[in-house]
């Protein structure tokens, strides 16, 4: 009896599995899928976008990663935001100016703003966000190191806040556009040091002042946003945005092609050709403030010799890499200020065009000699570079290409591939590397002090460990002035000085590839700026 019933149960389970699977057969599926296919007929006027993992809605949380950056700016506002030209424009602050010889920034706050729960926004929220969260050393807030020059924030009434600085910092308004949301004090202040543990706020039901609010969250699946009825700015015309969580890039492309996604940034240029040939999609290439580079460890010989750094740069055929790796979606980099900063970018700064013969001469001038096997010898030994890299984006193929170019001039690079966390620990935190391919993303400002100042070599972003007094002085002067013309003059001088010093081998500025449904208009600017200007998005008639 037991045997019979067990077998019957097993059979029933199997049958149920089969029936369940069969029920979703092509007939019903075709109807439901086809209505949205080709990304044009979106009857409910919502759009679907993608992010590659579960989102943390508190961007200051140290566990909020890049996937959160794609969603959060729609829910939260900052004091400033990027306008379509990439310049800081009013958001929760309506105006700002410096005081006390540049040691204070005064921000006048917008009146009448409400949080998504209807409570009023005031200076208390800004003070809480910065004094209690960002500048609180016990919390280790994400991106807090960007604000190391801010000592505290004070209020002058409910609608004015003052940032007090250790030294003048003209680019503070630009940094405040860069993933710096203001948090609701009335909800989070009671959490004290446990603010990161507020799962309800971080993962389910955040309260912001941005153009959208969270309607629902399905862990691992999707986040649905609807318009925030209390939003103070221009109301977005798209009533609902759904973010599908899709970890795989090829699946993103498939979903764009079958019409299940309406807007996505495609990170792998090798996948773009199919998208370009689909008439239901619009593919745009836009600039962004990112550069890829070869970082050489200037703390050790021979990379502390500028001749060696220049030689290794001359040995790399960057246009060929851009063509092969990026399918042409990028341009040769000559410094840390990318072309997206049209006003500050100087295309005429000295670059290092592909010239292997010159590279060899420079290495010889630096005391190296060609030896057996065509290898370059340094102090009697083959010049060998320890080159760790990470399984992330196209770091591995890029590193392998650089290895081949260096091999052609007799330089050996030993590549060690590791996972991203291990690489970050070994390379970025412990500086245990000779060379590495890397990238930097930064706010839209010519202020490159955090990345190239000598003061940031031991504890900061100057991973290459190279700097000099003249460059320090120029970067400091730029930080001290808010005059645009003076900033331009100083930015020009900084770019020239960096090109001479060659603290890192600038490789290329990749272009962002944005793909939208044909019937959807999104401003042709980079993704971050587009999110800041979501009110401009609309369905084309």
């Amino acid at each position: 009896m037991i045997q019979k019933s067990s077998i019957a149960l097993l059979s029933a389970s199997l049958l149920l599995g089969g029936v369940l699977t069969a029920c979703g057969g092509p007939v019903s599926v075709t109807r439901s899928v086809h209505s949205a296919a080709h990304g044009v007929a979106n009857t409910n006027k919502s759009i679907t976008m993608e992010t590659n993992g579960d989102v943390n809605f508190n961007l200051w949380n140290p566990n909020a990663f890049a996937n959160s950056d794609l969603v959060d700016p729609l829910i939260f506002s900052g004091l400033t935001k990027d306008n379509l030209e990439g310049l800081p424009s009013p958001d929760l602050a309506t105006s700002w100016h410096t005081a006390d010889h540049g040691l204070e920034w005064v921000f006048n706050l917008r009146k009448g703003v409400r949080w998504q729960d209807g409570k009023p926004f005031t200076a208390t929220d800004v003070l809480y966000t910065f004094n209690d969260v960002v500048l609180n050393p016990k919390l280790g807030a994400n991106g807090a190191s960007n604000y190391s020059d801010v000592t505290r924030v004070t209020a002058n009434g409910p609608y004015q806040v003052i940032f007090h600085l250790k030294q003048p910092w003209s680019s503070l308004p630009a940094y405040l556009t860069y993933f710096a949301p203001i948090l609701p004090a009335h909800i989070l202040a009671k959490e004290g040091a446990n603010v990161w543990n507020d799962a309800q706020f971080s993962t389910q039901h955040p309260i912001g002042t941005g153009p959208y609010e969270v309607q629902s969250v399905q862990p691992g699946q999707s986040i649905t946003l609807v318009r925030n009825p209390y939003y103070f700015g221009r109301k977005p015309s798209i009533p609902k945005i759904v973010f599908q969580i899709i970890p795989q890039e090829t699946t993103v492309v498939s979903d764009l092609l079958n019409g299940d996604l309406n807007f996505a940034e495609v990170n792998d240029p090798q996948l773009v050709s199919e998208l370009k040939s689909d008439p239901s999609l619009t593919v745009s290439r836009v600039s962004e403030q990112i550069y890829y580079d070869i970082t050489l460890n200037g703390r050790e010989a021979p990379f502390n010799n500028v001749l060696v750094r220049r030689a290794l740069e001359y040995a790399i055929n960057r246009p060929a890499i851009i063509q092969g790796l990026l399918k042409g979606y990028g341009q040769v980099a000559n410094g840390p200020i990318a072309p997206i900063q049209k006003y500050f970018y100087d295309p005429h700064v000295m670059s290092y065009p592909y010239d292997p013969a010159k590279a060899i001469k420079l290495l010889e001038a630096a005391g190296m000699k060609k030896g057996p096997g065509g290898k370059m010898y340094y102090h009697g030994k083959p010049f060998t570079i320890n080159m760790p890299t990470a399984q992330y984006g196209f770091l591995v193929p890029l590193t392998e290409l650089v290895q081949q170019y260096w091999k052609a001039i007799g330089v050996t690079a030993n590549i060690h591939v590791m996972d991203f966390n291990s690489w970050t620990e070994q390379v970025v935190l412990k500086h245990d590397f000779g060379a590495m391919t890397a990238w930097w993303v930064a706010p839209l400002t010519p202020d490159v002090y955090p990345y190239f100042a000598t003061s940031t070599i031991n504890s900061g972003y100057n991973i290459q460990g190279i700097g000099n007094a003249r460059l320090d002085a120029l970067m400091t002067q730029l930080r001290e002035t808010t005059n645009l013309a003076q900033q331009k003059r100083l930015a020009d001088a900084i770019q020239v000085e960096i090109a001479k010093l060659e603290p890192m081998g600038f490789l290329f500025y990749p272009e962002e590839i944005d793909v939208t449904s044909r019937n959807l208009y999104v401003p042709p600017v980079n993704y971050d700026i587009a999110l800041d200007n979501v009110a401009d998005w609309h369905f084309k008639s």
Partner: protein
Amino acid sequence: MTRYVVRRVGLGVMTLLIMSLIVFLLINAAPGGPAAIVNMNATASQRAALEKLYGLQQPVIERYASWLWSVLHGNLGVSYSLQQPVTQVIGDYFPNTALLAGAALGLSILIGVPLGTQAAIGRGRWLDRLASLITMMGLSVPDYWLAILAILVFSVWLHLLPASGMNAAGGGGGGGVLPHMILPVGVLTFVFMPNVFVIAKASMIEALQADYTRTARGKGASERRVVYRHALRNAFNPVLSVIGLITTVLIGGDAIVETVFAWPGIGRLMVEATSQRDYPVMMGVTIVIGASVICINIIVDILYGLLDPRVRYD
């Protein structure tokens, strides 16, 4: 039987304990650390603050003891990256894997066993050759490639099926869970069904040549009765073994298939937790998968006895 089950459960608990200790030590010995701490934007003092927050400055054995104590009290900890109790996170993801695994397993059995039986009966005929060809493909084609191909054909070219997720949450098309299941279940079935087929066919060939089958025929039993009542029942234990094996693999979540199809399952969760070094989730998933595997093995062992009276548990 009861003593046997109790003994197996006791052994299972010991296995889980040893496994948890080994995994805990390995996870902590691996280079890198939680993504929030190994973050190029964090200063040294920020990293120290976070290590303190997560209790990572304590010796690893102390941390293991503390973790074990919490587990014994039903608390698997709180996810670093998702900020939620690990039990809740696993509760969100595990049923999705179970759904996928159950459907793929069901189809693998429903297709693999009858096909293997028929192939054994008609060895060398067209059905046998066709089935063998298909199973050879299933055994040799990587699931990653097959998943991409399935998306390309059924989603991109034919616009028949959705390529990703479990639901169309609003913006895109695609219907409910069932249409979203078809491609991942299809791929998993194509990959796992051949294992059932091969064992079913081999066992049936052996069973059909056995003395008891000849005796049954000699007693005048119909061919249908001989095959399904006598041969198949006796051939089913090896099939049950392979089903148990497949179930243990499927229940851990096929990380590749779940990632390609953006299916929010336990395999994908484990991949993400590992890449972010979310220690509590990594440990929680390990324990849940480990416990599931042990349970499945015990169930399979019990089923052996139910299907074959010759199996004794003394």
